[in-house]
């Protein structure tokens, strides 16, 4: 750690100082498979996780607050609240905040461009901070999932979401960034999907989404610390079938009596 700082300072002071080679490979390796925590601790003890960029998609302004399309913003707010991160910076057209989840440094961003132009903000943000794309987590609403169901994916397509489309474009057609999809349910019949996503949640859906966002915070913690592993798969399965669960207060009794 000290060596690191020293190296950094040296490079600031004397530009002639040769740059230490291979150093960056160390961190690169640890992040190959997603987890932020490097597994290897060598003599110089480089045990620093690499940062994550967490981006929530939404439309700026009070007009769109609380709408289905702005679930990404809400997710960021929840994370910021849970981790005590203040989001009060405007950088690369996005409202940014910097903090830590556990010991993983994270950047939270809410692009203030409109949804269809989110890539203009997210691309430069990731580029400026040199964040590798598999350490970008994009959070957005998804009509193909039932309301309140979350899903963490290591990569994917745009799924006809204009925000994601734009972000992919901002990353130069690279789709290999992680996503947290937040289900908002399909629009009822004869409702225009565009109108549907720009509507405010109804009461029951709001409850479901709120509980889902709380679970989402946990999921993001898990994901940033461990990467895409079994636990995330399990999280996805739990989420997928969470509405199929019914209250089984007495199923235990049934089991017991059945066993007897």
């Amino acid at each position, binding site marked *: 750690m000290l060596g690191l700082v020293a190296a950094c300072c040296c490079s600031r002071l004397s530009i002639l100082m*040769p*740059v230490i080679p291979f150093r*960056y490979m160390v961190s690169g390796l640890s992040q190959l498979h997603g987890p932020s925590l490097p597994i290897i601790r060598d003599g110089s003890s480089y045990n620093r996780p690499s940062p994550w960029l967490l981006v929530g998609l939404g439309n700026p302004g009070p007009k769109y607050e609380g709408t289905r399309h702005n679930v990404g913003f809400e997710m960021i707010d929840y994370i910021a609240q849970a981790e005590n991160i203040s989001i009060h910076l405007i950088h690369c057209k996005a409202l940014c905040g910097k903090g830590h989840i556990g010991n993983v440094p994270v950047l939270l961003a809410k692009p203030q461009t409109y949804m269809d132009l989110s890539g203009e903000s997210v691309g430069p943000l990731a580029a400026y901070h040199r964040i590798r794309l598999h350490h970008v987590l994009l959070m957005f609403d998804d009509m193909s999932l039932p309301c309140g169901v979350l899903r963490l994916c290591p990569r994917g397509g745009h799924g006809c979401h204009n925000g994601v489309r734009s972000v992919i474009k901002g990353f130069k057609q690279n789709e290999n960034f992680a996503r947290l999809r937040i289900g908002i349910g399909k629009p009822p019949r004869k409702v225009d999907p565009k109108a549907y996503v720009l509507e405010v949640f109804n009461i029951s859906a709001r409850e479901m989404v709120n509980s889902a966002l709380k679970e989402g915070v946990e999921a993001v913690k898990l994901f940033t610390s461990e990467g895409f592993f079994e636990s995330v798969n399990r999280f996805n399965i739990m989420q997928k079938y969470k509405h199929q669960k019914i209250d089984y207060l007495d199923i235990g009794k049934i089991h017991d009596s059945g066993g007897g």
Partner: protein
Amino acid sequence: MILNTISSSNIFTHFSEASPTLRKSDNVSAAPISIGTHSKKNYTIWNRIITVNCFQKSAQEEEEKVSKTKKLALAEWLSSTERVAEIPNSSPAPPFKSTGTPSTPSRPSVNLKNSAFTPSSRTWTRRSHGQLTKRYEKTSKQREPASWMPKKPNLKDAALATLEDDGREVVYGDNGLAYRLAEAPFEFQYSYTETPKVKPLALREAAYVPFGPTTMPRPWTGRAPLPPSKKKRPEFDSFQLPPPNKKGVKHIQPPGPFAEGQGPKYVKTRDEILGERLTKEEVKQLVESSCHSSRQLNIGRDGLTHNMLENIHAHWKRRRVCKIKCKGVATVDMDNVCNQLEDKTGGKIIHRDGGAVYLFRGRNYNYKTRPVFPMMLWKPAAAVYPRLIERAPEGLSIDEANELRKKGRSLLPICKLGKNGVYLNLVKDVRDAFEVCDLVRVNCQGLKSSDYKKIGAKLKDLVPCVLLSFEHEHILMWRGKDWKVNEQGVGAPESHSDKECSVADSVEDTTRYTVMTTFSSDEKFGNENPISDCTDALTKENVLERNSLPFENVADQPSGDKDEITADLENSTSLQHLVINVDDSKGEENAVENNSLAFQNGFEFDSFEDKLDTSSSSEEELLDLIKSNQISDNVLTADVSGSITNKNIQFFGEDSAYNFRTSSSSILELEELVESSEMKASSNGEFDSSVYVSFTNTDKQCLGEDSAHSSEASDVPFFHGAEMNMVGEELAESTDEESILYSDEESKLYVQPEYAEKANGQENDDSFNHVDSKELIVNSNSETSQGGAGLHIEVLWEQAIDSGRVLLLDESDVDPDIVHQKAVAFAKTAPAGPFFKRNFSRKKVIKKPWKNTSLVKTSESEGLMAAERHNNDVRGEMPLSSYDLPHGGLALDELARLLAQ
């Protein structure tokens, strides 16, 4: 009474004729008989009944006497012959010996004994289909009344009909109803995939073997088959094809595919017919040739039926591959379908895609020598199976089960099955759902009721679970008491686990990782002992990489390449020695030349080692060397990372060696430098680049220069692919994604001075001295010095704040409107951020010719040149002009343009 025919002369019809009331009992008794053996006890029971009935019919006393004698004869026969599990109904006629009729003896309709199942040289080849139908037609006309109407039997004939000789029997056991014929390779079943694997409780009618009309006491209800065509068709031999231009012959694919100089062989066993394993290319070709054709075999709710085997052979008659499409119930368990297909037809499944299966016939397949089975002409007798849904399953009481059912009614179904859909993932989905919930409901609305019952039965076996109800066209399942929830997530998607979560991969990475980390740390501190260690490690790594590259298998088995690499490592010791030898000489050279730089990164350390051993150099030299190495390493890695991304491919082999010379000399290789620095800045994760550098260098050193160039040039795309497969897709993607560069004009400016300074050791030009350039220098330095971790982001953050790229909002500004307005206003003034430069695409590497570009020689590069010259001697010939540094003329122009701005 006159007998019309003989074929109906089976023992049961005798009795029923003697006593019409007995007919019922006859049917009842048929089922158990067909399972078990004919014992004496059975016989006696019948006899008693018969005699009772006969007394009732006392009017026919005269006939009774005759019949009695015949019955006795029958009794004798029954008791004498030990018959094991045979079907009593199936009694093909023996040679006819009529007692009083002048009719000519009729032949059995299908004499299976003498046709398909004869133990001749050609077992399992049959007569042509025409022949079969011909006889069939003839006999069905004659026999129709005979089998149905009560006729006076000929007991003598019946007694003579030794059922055992035919060897036909109906078996029903754990695999359901099956028919065992003599010399058949397996038990025939109506459906090989959809027959329930439960022992039936009973049959709804008497069991019979459905291979011919004489084998069963059933009326022929179908339409009479068409008369056979008079045309005589030759037996089709797949090895002797008709000439291609012959009229009236459809296209026939020749046997194969074969390698050059090989041809089809007349072989018998399955393995021989299949021939050598198909290569990937062959498989691809075969599948592509058949995937768009409409010739296909459909498998539906009956699954793979017996007669489909013949259909598959009919497909194979003209095509190498038979495309089979499955839909509906069968797709729940596709593995079973595939196994059965391979097992029963002898083909090989070469491709599976959803419900579609591509079945290859084998290289030496000959239609003429295919196995031929008799066709099944009736559906088998329906069997009675135990109830699928019990009222109180699995130890639940009825109330509890009802309670569960009640709860299930309000449950959301996990999925809806479409009619005749492909249900490949159903089992996995249900298993996943059971991880979370106790009850699972599947919506089957619109399906045939038998279909979802079959699906339910399959799920019961495959998941496994307890079926609760089929109410409202939904399958309701309970996971049972014994279900153990796997906390680690059973249902992890396989693709993910393969690509990302595989333990083997991570282990492999960590091993490499350790090597690299020790290397870097040692290098940094310049310790003596570790250097030797890490050189070993590095050279091993080099050789290892170098050797593992030619393996195509690496591409096939990303997870299993670790073993391979280790194997390579063992094999490559000789090469390593060679390399070290080369380096020994080079090390001497280096020792002589104080300021010289080694060309080969990895082997630089060998020379270190030598020096350390011989202690021929002073500490200063060492330090210098270390420094120079560091520089060279730096640029080299950066450069090679560039070449990985295909942009700098032309620099990859040859220029990488020059590049770092450039860096130490004062030559402005700006384009490359900018590129490389960009690469470096962006390529945090490319730990492999160093390894690859040394790989190319090994190539250079071991081979002659010219060949080295060619080999490198040819290796480049390969190398690219190998890299991707070695490290796994994820890494490849990461490297690719990282190599999408941040290239702003600004960033070029930032980066360039840094390198200019580093290279020249001069002061910065004033034009670069604005805040941004300073900022980026620090950035890149900090980044390279530590792995882009938290500190780096903080530094970047601070710099962003310092440089005015960031607008700080007040804490009170929480109103989204104000935030948005401020953001918009700020975006107009703030500098646009860096952008990703290149599109994400894996371009094909274009082989570039060796470039003899000479621009500038400087005095500083002479040391290099000396070393190079020496290297040249070692390697062989090297064109003089290759000392000169390659340069991009464009880069200079570009720089000039940028500077002018």
